[in-house]
């Protein structure tokens, strides 16, 4: 009798990131002419930290793999899956597949969430500086803050080229300072040109923590501006997009 009681329960397997799993695309949203968001339902979902990424792996019938990393755009409160926002690079291999082939209901192989440096853990105040699709992990932070600590001071400085390029436009609120570097929309009376000291000063956050994400050139400028505004270099976290696809 006692034998069964005495034998210990098998340990519950720890859910570590890194297991490849097959998710299902449940929703595709066209954000801009070259950016789409993909909601992917996951059988082994686990909560992520805002700023983390997933790896995506495509496999052809010969077993050839192409892998890329994409930042998570959704709040970890949206349980059961993640939203990845993908910028289409014409000569890429993975992003054109997502844009031109994937439809709702398709299966995709992913694993994550990964790395724990470019992540927001509730520190405050927060200055976010994003260029182009560099806004994606920052939007995850903004969305999570809205749902958990809407009073927490967080500002986003967001630089895009054209009116067509604004990702998540309908979600941008008072916390966002938008600037157009090439051509502003008709009748625009906000900022134009590259992110500069004036725009950072207007954001009004010069201590706490800063996250800067975009192309390498953008991040160089953005992190320098944050240092000039008074941020300790140790409190400036950066993520740079190389040519990828």
């Amino acid at each position, binding site marked *: 009798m006692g034998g069964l009681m005495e034998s210990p329960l098998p340990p519950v397997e720890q859910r570590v990131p890194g297991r490849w799993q097959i998710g299902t695309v449940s929703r595709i949203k066209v954000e801009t002419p070259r950016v789409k968001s993909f909601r992917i339902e996951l059988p082994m979902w686990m909560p992520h930290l805002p700023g983390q990424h997933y790896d995506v792996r495509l496999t052809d019938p010969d077993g050839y793999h192409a892998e890329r990393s994409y930042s998570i755009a959704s709040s970890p409160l949206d349980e059961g899956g993640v939203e990845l926002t993908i910028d289409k690079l014409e000569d890429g291999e993975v992003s054109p597949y997502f844009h031109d082939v994937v439809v709702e209901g398709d299966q995709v*192989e992913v694993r994550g969430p990964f790395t724990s440096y470019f992540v927001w853990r509730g520190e405050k105040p927060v200055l976010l500086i994003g260029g182009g699709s560099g806004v994606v992990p920052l939007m995850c932070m903004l969305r999570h803050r809205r749902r958990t600590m809407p009073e927490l001071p967080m500002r986003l400085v967001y630089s895009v080229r054209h009116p067509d390029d604004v990702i998540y436009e309908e979600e941008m609120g008072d916390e966002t300072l938008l600037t157009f570097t090439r051509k502003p929309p008709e009748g625009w009376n906000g900022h134009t040109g590259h992110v500069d000291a004036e725009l950072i000063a207007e954001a009004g956050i010069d201590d706490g923590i800063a996250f800067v994400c975009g192309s390498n050139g953008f991040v160089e400028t953005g992190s320098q501006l944050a240092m000039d505004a008074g941020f300790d270099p140790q409190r400036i976290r950066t993520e740079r997009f190389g040519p990828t696809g």
Partner: protein
Amino acid sequence: MSFPPARLRRKLRALNGFVSRGFKRRRQAPEELADRLPPGQYVESGWPVLTAGPTPDVPTDEWSFRIDGMVGEAKEWSWEEFHKLPFETITKDIHCVTKWSKFDATFGGVSLDVLLDQVEPLDAYAMFYSYGGYTTNLPIEEISDGKAWVVTEYDGEPLPREHGGPARMVVPHLYFWKSAKWVHGLTVMDHDEPGFWEMNGYNNHGDPWKEERYWGD
């Protein structure tokens, strides 16, 4: 590559693998280079930048390279002293954990063998440290016998600051986060300890041929 034959690979995949509907390979490494591309990597002709924080600015007259910790005698080389050491030009393939690989990158610098020879390491582990606070850990074994260099030149020119200038590590057989930029020195230790990225989710070892990208790989 002809082995295993495509037909067999297809069969194996059908048995236990997943195929992405409608996915067609678009990037083809030239046949003669295919053997040099680790799994999950693609060939990049440029040189992308991956840095966790702002780019440090280290003037060469303030730069030095030190070896300390468990060694016979700690040593520090100034920029000038460093450039009196035997200088090598190396051409290597490099592999970044963010999936790009760059073939035939040419660097100029000093082999770590030369530097370690002068200090007599007494233990098996090293922690590299950089200006700006970056660290990364490597067993001494992984940086000895022609596996690691402190380089100050890329393509015959001074190493650009965004790529780690004035001096960075090149440890080409491991993912490139192990090749510390703005390197300032290393501490020899009697135990292994995770460095910056190793604490933040990347693998402790980082062999691209085994795809040791993240914790648990």
